[in-house]
């Protein structure tokens, strides 16, 4: 059974839905109830474009049990063109090609398996443009 915790995040993980503040236009991802920039609380739903650049990264060599067998894998912080920043795995790339500043885009991928039943959990990963 899909867990409520997972289900709640589907709009963000599958469709990159964010909240754009109607007062100051700041985009929050994930959406928030209070705008961190201006404190107002009315938003419209927007979809992130998914293209951006890598601000920093690392190669995870030792992971939690949940990611056992998946190491090593790359993760980084990406700044999207809309100004949103997020943490994501970096897929389909030789580690030595990963540099700060490279252009990336977000794609839909499997991220992990949930619980003993191994339910597939999806989301975004970055790939080189």
């Amino acid at each position: 059974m899909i867990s409520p915790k997972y289900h709640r995040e589907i709009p963000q993980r599958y469709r990159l839905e964010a909240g754009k503040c109607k007062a100051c236009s700041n985009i929050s991802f994930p959406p928030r109830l209070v705008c961190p920039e201006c404190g107002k609380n009315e938003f419209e739903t927007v979809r992130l474009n998914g293209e951006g650049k890598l601000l920093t990264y690392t190669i995870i060599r030792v992971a939690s049990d949940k990611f056992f067998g998946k190491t090593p894998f790359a993760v980084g912080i990406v700044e999207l063109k809309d100004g949103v920043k997020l943490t994501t795995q970096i897929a389909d790339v030789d580690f030595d090609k990963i540099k700060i500043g490279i252009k990336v885009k977000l794609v839909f991928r499997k991220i992990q398996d949930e619980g003993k039943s191994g339910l597939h959990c999806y989301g975004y990963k970055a790939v080189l443009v």
Partner: protein
Amino acid sequence: MRDVAVIGIGMTQFGELWGKSIKDIFVEAATKAIKNAGVDHIDSMYVGSMSSGLFVGQEHLGAILADYLGQTPIPSTRVESACASGGAAFRAAYFEVASGASDIVLAGGVEKMTDGADVTEALATAADQEYEVYQGVTFPGLYAMIANAHMNQYGTTREQLAAISVKNHRNGANNPNAQFRSPVTLEQVMNSTLVADPLRLLDCSPVSDGGAAVILCSMDVAKKFTDTIIKVKGTAQASDTIALHSRKSLTTLNSVVTAAHKAYKMAGVTPKDINFAEVHDCFTIAEAVVYEDLGFCEKGCGGPAAEEGRTAIDGKTPLNTSGGLKSKGHPVGATGIAQIIELYEQLTGQAGKRQVKNAHIGLAQNMGGSGASCVINILEAK
């Protein structure tokens, strides 16, 4: 508010204490502190613990520890601010005494990390579960991303980070309570196993069990027990976004900058007046960044500082004379209190081979997560 003093300290050995439970560890530290202070009672207690629920399956820690310490029915509360839990417990105790509500309060911290829990997963709960950890990020991974950004922006080198580990192991070798009492060489750090590039095993603080406790009291009460008054001169706390990626800068920890500013103001001092400091070196890069953000040098000088000996015991600003989290160990909730204990030992001239000359004012910086919480306490020998 009235002035508050620290009059007693107690801690356990830090390390893998397989024969001892979380209760045994805390009671040992608290009993030592009460005895060391010479008080016949305490009015209340606060205990910092990051995740007793995940590590040993025990919540309601305040009550169970008061029970096993033989202190019921005094009020006893567990305080949680991730790795800054100990520092936050100290502040809670400080305010209870400063407000006049109580005269003598125990501030403690404890963590039992070697009972079989998935430590990497438990520690990761201090980050954003859905938007950082979901992607597989670990704490070494978060600090590794700070390290890569710092190296890119300021030219910090791998060798400079290694020098921090070498310095802290050298200090910890002279600390009888330290988990690792063995010096390490630059080569050993540089060749240790990669955990999250560029951080290696010897850049990371270890998994530890341990407890620490101190006794705080009003200045009037302190004078009845001791002539060596250690005054709490400043205390401050600040927060930042839980996710590293939400911050405007990846190389400055704003919670540290803000808490430091407030603590200096309360204490009426500047960074130049601080004779030595215990800082939260959960990873080597953290010590470099915190050294800068506490205002001890310009941004970007945190790397060269250790390499040039500026943060050594005989340097301009000795950092982590106890061995820091790296060598002394990091039983998460106990760390903030153990930092206060090092300040106390230095300020009372009891630090032995680790003793800093002319130690009058010391600062303890304790932080949680990737810097989403920061607690700073400044102590002074009167």
